[in-house]
């Protein structure tokens, strides 16, 4: 299913601190590859590799101006991950509340 695959790619893309830092920077506006590479001690090709992972996961996109192709966030997949993780968390929070009540009932409280 496309949605499951999209989530998987998003999780994989987020599973790297450099990529998360890149996304955090892009949340404040678009940037060129060299601007994005600046805070890191890794090489420009290494940064480009990370950008490729993020692009393939649909998390960022490149602008189309000839000389300047900035990167920017594409928020759809992130929103999806956020909702999925939130859903899982809410599921267990509510289940545990119900379990509390059920255990009380079983013990005659």
């Amino acid at each position, binding site marked *: 299913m*496309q949605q499951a695959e999209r989530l998987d790619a998003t999780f994989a893309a987020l599973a790297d601190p450099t990529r998360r830092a890149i996304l955090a920077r892009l*949340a404040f506006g678009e940037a060129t590859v060299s601007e994005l590479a600046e805070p890191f001690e890794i090489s420009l090709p290494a940064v480009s590799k990370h950008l490729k992972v993020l692009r393939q996961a649909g998390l960022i996109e490149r602008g189309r101006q000839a000389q300047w192709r900035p990167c920017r966030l594409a*928020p759809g997949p*992130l929103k999806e991950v956020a909702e999925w993780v939130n859903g899982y968390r809410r599921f267990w*929070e509510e289940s545990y509340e119900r379990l509390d009540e059920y255990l009380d009932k079983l013990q005659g409280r």
Partner: protein
Amino acid sequence: MVQQSHPGLTITMPSDREVVTVRDFNAPRDLVYRAFTDPQMIPNWWGPRIYATKVEKMDVRPGGTWRFIQSDAQGNEFAFRGEYREVTPPERVVSTFEFEPMPGHVIVETTVFEETDGKTRVTTTAIFQSKEDRDGMVQSGMEVGARESYERLSEILATMV
């Protein structure tokens, strides 16, 4: 990095794909362990209140599988399923958790039960698995601003940290 998001429930995120939940219950371990592993008991607490849960199968031993069907007031149904990998009563269960409408996206959950003074601490570590397969990705539309989306994710992750 720990945050109380609910009285008695602590959620941490020790690495990017692990969520650790710690919850204390006012009951002895044997009873809590049974609540988690007895098919008769599951429908009394598992899942959100608005859904009824039916246990289709629940074979709690290594290699055994489970499948629970949830239904709402309108009769809509969807299922969760998984398999058990390790079972050490009454201390520990390792199993997978999958939401059938989104197949292939599997969580591996390790649940540990510890008793102190007649109360039980349940610690669950959930690891989100990720597949290599990236075919057929369709980017969903931009419904919200870029920063808003990312901040929302950070917010949610922060409550887990």
